[in-house]
């Protein structure tokens, strides 16, 4: 039995390693293009809302905390506590997705979605754009402005892939809440909760990398 517990934990760490390789491809593309088109990446990054981004970061870190508390509750056989922690994590996850929806719809309104009537106006004429004006952006030459589409392509690919992992996590959380309420995890078999906790922390850590890379390019004061 202990062998089984040991084995599934090891398996989850290995799986997370595959996830690192998976996201690694996206990070590689990001690093290359940020190096080539830095001014475009700066301008693109300034279009994201620091407020929502920081809020989301706080939400995820808190949800990692509630998840860790949940694991502790499972270990100490506190059923009520476990259910509460899982529900909180679930809700925080939904909040994260909600904020992401707000951010995405903002981008859609402003025509910053690659391939769908992408508009260069915010970059060639920053005064026409709230976010660019506040950040004090200078107008970009046309060829560099065109490369902002690359930034947003990577933005949507990376945060989209991350959000997909969040959705899967939230779905599993829903399943876990039902099972936890039925007492499945507070009788000594906590591996599922523990391993899911690892997954959730991983998704959080990916965001911790995404946030500065996407939101905080050349932000001064």
């Amino acid at each position, binding site marked *: 039995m202990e*062998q089984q517990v*040991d084995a599934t934990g090891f398996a989850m760490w290995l799986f997370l390693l*595959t*996830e690192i390789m998976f996201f*690694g491809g996206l990070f590689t593309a990001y690093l*290359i293009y940020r190096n080539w088109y830095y001014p475009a990446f700066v301008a693109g990054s300034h279009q994201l809302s620091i407020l929502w981004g920081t809020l989301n970061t706080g939400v995820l870190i808190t949800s990692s905390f509630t998840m860790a508390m949940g694991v502790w509750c499972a270990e100490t056989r506190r059923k009520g506590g476990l259910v509460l922690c899982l529900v909180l994590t679930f809700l925080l996850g939904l909040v994260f997705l909600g904020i992401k929806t707000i951010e995405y719809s903002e981008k859609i309104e402003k025509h910053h979605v690659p*391939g769908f009537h992408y508009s260069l106006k915010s970059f060639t004429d920053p005064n026409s754009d709230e976010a660019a004006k506040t950040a004090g952006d200078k107008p970009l030459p046309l060829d560099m402005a*065109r490369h902002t589409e*690359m930034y947003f392509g990577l933005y949507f*690919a990376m945060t989209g892939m991350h959000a997909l992992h969040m959705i899967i996590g939230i779905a599993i959380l829903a399943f876990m809440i039902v099972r936890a309420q039925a007492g499945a995890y507070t009788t000594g078999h906590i591996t599922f909760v523990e391993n899911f906790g690892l997954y959730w922390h991983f998704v959080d850590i990916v965001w911790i990398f995404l946030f500065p890379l996407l939101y905080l390019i050349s932000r001064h004061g």
Partner: protein
Amino acid sequence: MSTIISLPDQSTARIPKVNFITKENGLLSWLLTGDHKRIAMLYLASITFFFAIGGALAGLIRLELLTPQSDLMATDTYNKVFTMHGVVMIFLFLVPSVPATLGNFLIPIMIGAKDLALPKINLLSWYLYVAGGIMVLYTMAAGGVDTGWTFTTPLSTHYLNTNVLSTGIAIFIAGFSSIFTGLNFIVTIHKMRAPGMTWFRLPLFVWSHYAASILMVLGTPVLAIALVLVILERTMGIGVFDAAKGGDPILFQHLFWFYSHPAVYIMILPGMGVISEVISTFSRKRVFGYTAVAFSSVAIAVFGFFVWEHHMFIMGVSTYSTLVFSLLTMLVAVPSAIKIFNWSFTLYKGSITFETPMLYAFGFMGLFTIGGLTGVFLGTTGTDIHLTETYFIVAHFHFVMVGGMLMAFLAGIHFWWPKMTGRMYPEKISQLAALITFIGFNFTFFPQFILGTLGMPRRYAAYPAEFQVLNVFSTAGATILGVGYLLPILYLTWSLRYGEIAGNNPWQATGLEWQIQSPPLTENFAEIPIVDHDAYDYDWLERKHVHEREVTSV
């Protein structure tokens, strides 16, 4: 001719009443099983099916290439045929072949465990494979895809309107099947070994699967993300690989080959594991240089991650980077050479017999050596310029994959057939089939080395007339090869009903799998063994037989 086959008395022998096949009946008991052996059989059936499809496509290719003109089918159709041939053969046959069938069946038994660490994930693996396979079938029904199995951008992202999306999704799903299999193996080998089964007592079959699993786990996700980005570029216009949007198509090449090079080692390492087992058994000797062979598997896995750019030497990459990758390619060639010599010297002072698995193993050694050496021609930057993108490459990879891997797979299937089914295959006709395969293979693919050196490009539906003679030779060989592959499918199926009863250990081999009944119990071992001997310890086997004789004679 001498043989080591020792079967029980056929007049009294019976297949053990209780075994993993008879344990439960009904389709659902198979489709919802957690038993690694049943999952292995499910895989065997499905990969044979896809091999047949891939083989039929190969037949079409060779038929078209009988004549210089593109006259058998439209060029577009030909492009789809070779693409689907590559996709089916690589992702639906070669990558899962040995690991998912023989690996799944044998690894728990070889290490003395009752099952893999994660049986449900194992079943999920098979379902993902089937889902990927069904998507590929759908793609074929929907008209096929003609990107080439390498999905080169921007051809695949912007210049084709065939079913790139469904193929990309199919490979993505099949990739996860591979990842989960590898994950399962690594966890199992680390955590589930029987008491006394230390790392250096493991059969080399297990070592090679361990190395291949590292590649599966770390490499496949990069292919997954490369496919995701191609899909995003096609559907959403995210131009990561689009030169017009400031993207770089060479980035796709890097991401694609970062997986696809380790993929070839995923394909060959398990086969090499089979060869170790077969050569040892049929020379009655421990493998020469066990430690060297074990470490060379891991070395191939590690070095295999650092050579991918050798697929891109003429693509305008930095000349200095080609130096690095060419050097590393030379380094990765050495462990394979080490293995070949170690296997050769396993024969030294052995007691050798030539049953079918051994014939396939010999075929492997010769053909893989040629394939591997021609790899050095391609890893050398100077000659790669002339030889790349020609039939030399086609010949090279068919030598290592078909002459190497497929021969090893057949060696393994024949070697463990009695264990998996309880019945022997017919020896004479199988030896004939091995010979036919070897001859057919050489006729098919050796002329292609010459064609490549002469400059004939690959993926050509039509070619200059001066290349016709060699192409005709190649097609003639393919016909013979086809017969060689058809025969096993026929006689192995026949043997399920009419084959001789094999008993526990028809080969008098040393592995743990040969000490249990054929077919095995669902839980493999009546009680978990305690291991006190090295792999390939024929002295231990001898002592065991003496002990058994003493016990039974009491």
